[in-house]
């Protein structure tokens, strides 16, 4: 490794790190400037006290939890069944789960609006509950690539066939096998997928805005247009949530590795 290569390496790394750190620093610094001349947490106090923030944030958290529940209910049985009974179908299922990365979210929601409008065969956008349900389904689709990958990787580390036969010989039905044998064994993988889903849903903008639901993402965009400091404080909060989710994924992954080494 020559001196020049080392210098170039350091230069690239430092440039990149500055690129990542400066905007985060700029955001944080700006969010503290609500009071003239001194740094203060005024902007944070204001947004956290804002009733609309509380409402939209709660809405997005509930949405994220519903999305995780629906995602787990769909992905875990499917990935399990494919591994156990239809290994030949794995590439096809995997391909389908990757489609949401290919089709832009804005196109998917465009389809929802036109396909499930009030005059269609399934008028989901006609009622509030229906639209909420549609949004949850849309989020499940967006999270599908990450959820499926996480769970499928988790299933790879356990012997699905043997566990299933053992459970069956003890008299367990399919629901018992899935809920009491398979799920506990892949819980770290499910949690990784769940945290990533949470991070995606909490700040999502496009779907919520176009389906006109009171979620955190559209709220943030809206007050960005007419409040000076609050949107920046909110963005810091959103960053912190994303980081917390990613930190939890690391923690869960590391924890599961330790438990395996101890066996």
């Amino acid at each position, binding site marked *: *490794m*020559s001196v020049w*290569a*080392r210098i*170039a*390496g*350091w230069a*690239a*790394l430092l*440039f*990149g790190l500055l*690129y*990542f750190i*400066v*905007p985060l*620093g*700029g*955001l944080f610094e*700006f969010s503290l400037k609500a009071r003239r001349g001194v740094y203060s947490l005024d902007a944070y106090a204001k947004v956290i006290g804002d009733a609309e923030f509380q409402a939209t944030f709660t809405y997005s958290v509930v949405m994220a939890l519903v999305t995780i529940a629906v995602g787990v209910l*769909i992905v875990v*049985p*499917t990935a399990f*069944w494919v591994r156990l*009974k*239809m290994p030949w179908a794995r590439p096809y299922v995997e391909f*389908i789960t990757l*489609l949401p990365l*290919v*089709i*832009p979210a*804005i*196109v*998917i929601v*465009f*389809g*929802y609006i*036109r*396909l499930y409008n009030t005059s269609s065969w399934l008028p989901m956008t006609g009622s509030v509950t229906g639209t909420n349900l549609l949004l949850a*389904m*849309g989020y499940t*689709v967006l999270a599908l690539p990450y959820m499926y990958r996480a769970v499928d990787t988790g299933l790879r580390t356990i012997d699905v066939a043997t566990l299933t036969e053992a459970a069956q010989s003890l008299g367990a039905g399919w629901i018992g096998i899935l809920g009491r044998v398979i799920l506990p064994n892949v819980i770290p993988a499910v949690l990784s997928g769940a945290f*990533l889903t949470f*991070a995606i849903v909490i*700040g999502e*903008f*496009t779907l919520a805005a*176009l389906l006109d639901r009171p979620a955190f*993402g559209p709220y*943030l*965009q809206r007050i*960005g247009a007419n409040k000076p400091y609050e949107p*920046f404080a*909110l*963005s810091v909060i*959103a*960053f912190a949530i*994303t*980081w917390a989710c*990613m930190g939890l994924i*690391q923690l869960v992954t590391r924890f599961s590795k330790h438990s395996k080494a101890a066996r």
Partner: protein
Amino acid sequence: MSFVPSTRRLPLTWVGLAPFLIFITLFLILPTAHIVIGAFQDRDGGFTLQNLRDLNTGTIPSSYWISVKISVASASLGCLIGFAMAAAVTFGAVPRWIKAPLMTFSGVASNFAGVPLAFAFLATFGPVGLVTLFLRNNFGIVLSRDLGFNILSFWGLTVTYLFFQIPLMILIITPALEGLRREWREAAEVLGATGLQYWRMIALPILFPSLLGTFALLFANAFGAVATAIALTGSALNIVPIQLFAQIRGDVLGNPNLGYAMAFGMIVVTAVANVLYIWLRIRAERWLK
């Protein structure tokens, strides 16, 4: 021909996939198909290619052109910077321990597109942002006047997109760089190759499919980004996702089927980029076994 009663039951294993297939059909396949079919229909439902022809009218071609330019710019710069950073940590130009935290950070940052990202860049490069004020107070440089830089513009959006493009590049290219064997380099050196010759004639040709494939992925990634663009520029910049957003909200084109055609165009662009990525990745993996 005698009739033999079959003891085999109907194959029912596919029933286990039914919930998944129903879900995917209802919430991914049918909505997308509806858009694609709509792109080829006129107002009365008859088949037509007029919508696709109409894509060449009004502001639509220019919005596609700006979108493509932004995607190309952010994907090229993202590839370049991400490659340099990944190479620095992979080939030991910087201490080894930096690699793990950098990969973790890249995993987070590559997922961090959206409204908060737009505000981070507004707070940094906006009219009263951290860097803007720092340059003005300490060096007397006014970003918008002296460097012609405005965050609500082509370059502003490109610079913002780079925040998730660079980490994505690092995540994807690092395994490819790790696949370069030490023996190849040693063999080249034994045969008298210089460092430059090794890169030009061995490493880059091997990495080429990975590089081009990742470029395609980054391109699609930028092309489909909606939230960052809307939060950053509002409707100031005429790019495809913003125009489609306005069309879905209020039919600004005055022709619903033209909106379908625009969405169809988006699918085509991102699909081509992704197919290119997958194909090149399969090619690249031949060397990485």
